[in-house]
């Protein structure tokens, strides 16, 4: 991976880390390393799409209606169905090339915006995925399994929505950062609790974050039907946030593309810098790889675990904040379509590296956006994306399956696995 040792800091710990990594791979040529890194994820995505196509064909009524004519007809019908579906998926997420060209020729500004809308909408949809999967990836890197991104995202959204609507009269240049910080703080609190419990009592973070998720859901249920409910409304929805707290949008309607995307990229870079370029990130990663050795090397497991969970929570909180300040401009029940859970898959697909995570998030934002159109055009429920995600996650989590299918040789270097260390501690 992109883990070049900086010449200044070749200390005992660095040597230790290389030992733990099972030898550095940096002596291999770049193309080979790149191939090795990308091979399994790319094949996993392709295999997932193929399985998705099979699912579309198998559940298609037109296939069964011609089955009695001949099996060959059925295969053709199935192929046709898949072609229409995946065509719609592409047009809905990237855009229809013919339409883009026609719009550019025509010069009508509304038509141009409409033609470019799909791809910008895909970027917008990717944004919460980037934040949330960065959260999970940071957790994995430091040896904690943050399954609670969904709850942290809710709390972040609650905090930022409150700051967004309750504080009035601030200029945007202050109000937006304040609301963002509030969201990060909310998520950080929700991550801090399980982190602290793990460090101090050994209570396993997987169980605790799951529990915290449901506490967060119930909390938001209560807030939205009581203290934070919009005064004139009977629906569980918060007041609209002040215009000064809304993340600016770059284009006119219908394009919803907003500043959040660039904030997400900046945060991804920041996480990269923190993890791979600072002493603190080094501590974090070595605790993730081998807590016992790190303790002997003088690192504080308690501090690292608590900080990692808080930071992870803050990132997840930003995912919720992004939706509130950038898209919805209010907090509603069930505003998240499971970003926190999806992000586990995306973090693993991106190999817990910020760059990989951003790419994986872009892929899934694109798929989700396209699936909306696919639902309309081909009557294929949007939930197929979740199924795809599960398939891809299986292949990523068990690369041996991919190797068996495609008859690949096992890699010379042992791949980093993600493992947990027991349940309740002791």
């Amino acid at each position, binding site marked *: 991976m992109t883990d070049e040792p900086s010449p200044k800091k070749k200390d005992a710990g660095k040597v230790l880390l290389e030992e733990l990594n099972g030898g550095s791979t940096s002596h291999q040529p770049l193309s080979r390393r790149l191939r090795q890194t990308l091979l399994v994820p790319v094949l996993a995505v392709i295999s997932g799409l193929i399985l998705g196509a099979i*699912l579309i064909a198998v*559940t298609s009524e037109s296939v069964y209606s011609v089955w009695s004519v001949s099996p060959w007809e059925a295969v053709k019908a199935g192929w046709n169905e898949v072609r229409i579906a995946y065509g719609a998926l592409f047009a809905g997420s990237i855009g229809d090339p013919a339409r883009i060209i026609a719009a550019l020729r025509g010069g009508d500004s509304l038509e141009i915006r409409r033609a470019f809308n799909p791809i910008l909408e895909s970027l917008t949809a990717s944004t919460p995925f980037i934040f949330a999967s960065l959260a999970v990836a940071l957790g994995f890197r430091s040896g904690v*399994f943050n*399954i609670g991104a969904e709850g942290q995202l809710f709390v972040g959204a609650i905090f930022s929505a409150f700051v967004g609507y309750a504080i009035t009269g601030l200029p945007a240049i202050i109000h937006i950062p304040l609301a963002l910080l509030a969201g990060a703080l909310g998520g950080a609190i929700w991550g801090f609790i399980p982190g602290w*419990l793990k460090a*101090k*009592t*050994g*209570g*396993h973070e*997987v*169980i*605790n974050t*799951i*529990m*915290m998720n*449901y*506490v967060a859901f*119930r*909390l938001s*249920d*209560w807030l939205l039907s*009581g203290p934070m409910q919009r005064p004139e409304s009977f629906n569980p929805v918060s007041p609209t946030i002040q215009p000064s707290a809304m993340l600016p949008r770059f284009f006119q309607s219908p394009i919803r593309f907003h500043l959040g995307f660039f904030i997400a990229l900046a945060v991804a870079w920041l996480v990269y810098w923190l993890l791979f370029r600072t002493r603190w990130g080094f501590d974090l990663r070595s605790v993730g790889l081998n807590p016992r050795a790190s303790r002997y090397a003088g690192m504080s497991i308690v501090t690292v675990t608590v900080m990692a969970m808080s930071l992870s929570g803050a990132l997840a909180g930003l995912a919720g904040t992004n939706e509130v300040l950038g898209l919805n401009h209010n907090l509603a029940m069930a505003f998240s379509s*499971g970003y926190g*859970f*999806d992000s*586990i*898959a995306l973090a*693993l697909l991106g190999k817990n590296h910020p760059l990989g995570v951003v790419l994986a998030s872009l892929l899934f934002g694109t798929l989700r956006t396209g699936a909306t159109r696919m639902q309309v055009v081909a*009557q*294929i*429920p949007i*939930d*197929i*994306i*979740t*199924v*795809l*995600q*599960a*398939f891809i*996650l*299986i292949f990523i*989590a*068990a690369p*041996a*399956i991919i190797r068996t299918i495609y008859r690949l040789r096992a890699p010379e270097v042992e791949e980093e*696995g*993600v*493992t*947990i*260390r*027991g*349940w*309740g501690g*002791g």
Partner: protein
Amino acid sequence: MATTSLRREIEVVSPTRQRVMGIVFLALAAGIWLLFSRGTQGGLTTTFDLVPGGVESNVPDWRLPTLATLNTLAVFSAFAGGAQLVRGFGRRTNLVLALVSGFFIFGFLTWAAAGRSLNLAGLLNTSLSKAVPITLGALSGVLCERAGVVNIAIEGMMLAAAMVASLVGSISGSLWVGLLAGVLTGALLGLVHAVLSIKYLTDQIISGTVINIFAGGITAFISAKFLQPNQFLNDPGIFKPFEIPLLSKIPVVGPILFDNNLFVYAMFLFLILLNVALFSTRWGLRMRSVGEHPKAADTLGINVFRTRYMAVLLGGMMAGFAGAYFTIGSVGRFDEFMTAGRGFIGLAAMIFGNWTPFGSFGAGLLFGFADSLAGKVAILGVQIPSEFLLMAPYIATMVVLAGVVGRGQMPAADGQPYVKE
């Protein structure tokens, strides 16, 4: 581990724990007095209806003087706290804890229904039916984790089984076929979990997460594509409650326990069976040894892999059975994401119940009670948002996991893949 039983002995009599528990009892006593007694006017009576709705019986209502009852409960709890601090209840501490917590809950009900009438039997009956999927899910967890495989996929298994049971039940027209299909669905997902985590050594949490994501996606997909446009595919009917002769005629207890449907009776059967099998048979001993120390078990000639496969398959079937409850056992139709986190509460109940069947049932009952009480607070007019009651199981689990009221004894090799050398 050899030290497990030793540790348990030490833990029960440890002076810190004795003191902490004494303070907990006193706090509960103070809670009863401060929260409930002080705000209650004298002369009010609380009426508990002891017959569930719709049942004919001549059991009279239970009338209690509110204030006197509350004060009695507070005094008893305070006495338990004092005794714990001075002498300690030793091995019976947990029992006393359950008793005092029971006092607290009863105090709450007495206070909430002061001057009014509350159908206690109905409340208990709802609690029992809400406890069924939670307990069955927890039993699924017990089966898997006693053999050393963490199962957080209970939720997904239940959801998938709920849908399949409804779909197959509707198509075949037979509830039993639907039930069988649900159980097989659970087994199939259990097999996936087993193959991923035992054969491919995938992290068990990730493997479980995959199953949860998959189940959520595929059920929503099939529901939107087939069940919603064709309602006849989602109309299996339900297993009707039936009375057990004689037993259902016992006053108070009879209508609550012995007038239920198949799933409730099956839950009791599974509870007893699993408890006996785990702790009194060779099969159970082998399974637990695989969960505690797989290497030692292997050395003694136990097939670790086969044992784990079997445990996870059985666990999957149990979760499948639990899932079928949601459709053909209660509402008679499938809705997207209808399990709504009950699988995770089941997991919590398993931890709360210290990885034992009856402990899980106790926890399941408690969580079911919190759930059914949440539905009642609005009617009672208590100033506690029902959402807070719904949070209680999760927070209670975190407290238990943190070891505040005694740490659970999880299987030593839980979550660790076994690689034969």
